[in-house]
């Protein structure tokens, strides 16, 4: 199903947006915004999903999304001490998570799983 996704957070935003477009097999919309604007946009229903990267996977990437959308809708898929595997990520998506934060250096590992999960939802 087609969906709208916004890249907020802080590191490598354009690169992440580009990779998501390439990975997705669906007709999706991907935009880049500041963390605050992006989180607001998801809260207001303008976008379906939020992704963001930073050094911790939780601070710059996900802090505003967690504050505005709620921690039951957000998940850190990769932090400096832990990285979820593909099954766990897809599981989180099916459990209703809409905002995803990760550390910048795990982008290549986590994005395929996130996009796969969202594409199939």
């Amino acid at each position, binding site marked *: 199903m087609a969906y709208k996704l916004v890249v907020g957070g802080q590191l490598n935003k354009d690169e992440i947006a580009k990779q998501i477009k390439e990975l997705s097999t669906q007709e999706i919309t991907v935009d880049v*915004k500041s963390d605050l604007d992006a989180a607001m946009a998801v809260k207001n229903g303008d976008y379906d999903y939020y992704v963001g990267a930073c050094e911790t996977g*939780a601070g*710059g990437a996900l*802090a505003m999304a*967690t504050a505005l959308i709620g921690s039951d809708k957000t998940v850190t898929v990769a932090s400096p001490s832990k990285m979820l595997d593909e099954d766990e990520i897809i599981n989180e998506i099916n459990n209703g998570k809409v905002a995803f934060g990760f550390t910048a*250096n*795990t982008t290549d590992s986590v994005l395929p799983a996130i996009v796969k999960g969202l594409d199939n939802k």
Partner: protein
Amino acid sequence: MDHLAIINYVIIALVGGFGAILANKGIAVFNDGLRPIMPEYFEGKISRKELAASSFAVSFGLVIGFGIPVSIGTTILVAHSILLAADIIGTSTPNNKIGVALSGVIGAVYGVGLMFGLSFIVQMFSKLPVDFLPGLSLLGGPILLAFCAFPAVAVASQHNGKRGIVTFVLTFVTFILTDKFGTFNVGDYKITLNSIGMALLVAMICMIYFAAKVQETGDGNNSALVNVFGERVSRIKKNWIWLSIEGGLITAASSLLILAVDVLPQQLLVKDQVTAALIATLARAVGFIPLVFSTAIVTGVYGMAGTTIIFGIGLALQGHPFIAFVAGFIWMFAEVQLLGVTAKGLDKFPGLRDMGEHIRDSLSQTISVALLIGAAIACNKMAPTLGYFWIVGFYLINKQMKKPLVEMAVGPIAAIALGILLNVLRLIQLY
């Protein structure tokens, strides 16, 4: 132990202990990522146990993977090594009077233990068969001037490459000119301009100038947040006394040069570049202010060091811990009282908020590259030519790991690992 060392230990114990109490009472946490989870606990959506687990998850990796390794080999702690640990200690202790006392004691013991441990490690290293501290001390070399490139990188990513080059060239020219002509006599006084500081200053002015010119407004802005979350802003203001005390303590620690806000000012302090460290601290603060403000407003939980400007105040008052305490106390009070006003004021310059993200991004990139090059030089000093093999392999293989190390810490960790490995090889007579 001399008189000064005792003050150092007392202050660091107070910073750790008081910081842990602040986290315990939910008044302030250092990790920007933990802040939004705090209200979920206040509202009863998650239990204390879950809060402690979240706190551990977002902070522990940074304490052992970043804060501590980059502090090894020096006696200057990076704030992450103690204040993130204070987050964990505070949220892991019960939410009652015993918990407050317990968090304070554990925080203080941790602070002292950490500082003692690090100076112990420095002494231990110098007694090893292969003393790699002289090598390791080269690690921070490149960062000294290289970090002045970060505003140009931020400008290039926020605006365009052309403006980035303009900023870069102006930074370059400023350095050359102040380095060559920066010493002059005014009457009997000889004045020397700090060329690194001046170059950074010019670069920062360029960056802020370009950002302030941005006109369009964002959809979400601080005014809206302050209005919606007014109660939470009042909560922060109500806690001013706690925040001001911790602010004063951190400022005092900074003035004693035992605590730096990040690896960049820390490495500059290791090289005795206090002025440059001061400017770098303020430059970094500019990048983090938007994030600290907006997460504080929506959560009612402040930053343990606020905007982190107090670290700069401490450096400006170097060697005067008592004056620094008072100054930090007053500054923190003002920061907290003016939180709503300042945050709304930032709305007038939407480019500045956006700039924060680009500063944080470009700072971490610049520091990572500079530390990586520094680590290569350090490793090569320890083991000529083998050092380069080690660092290139270590860096690239880390990127492929399932749990890669924090980018900024890869260089320092690789260098320390090589030093230890060389000693093991010496023991079995292979090196």
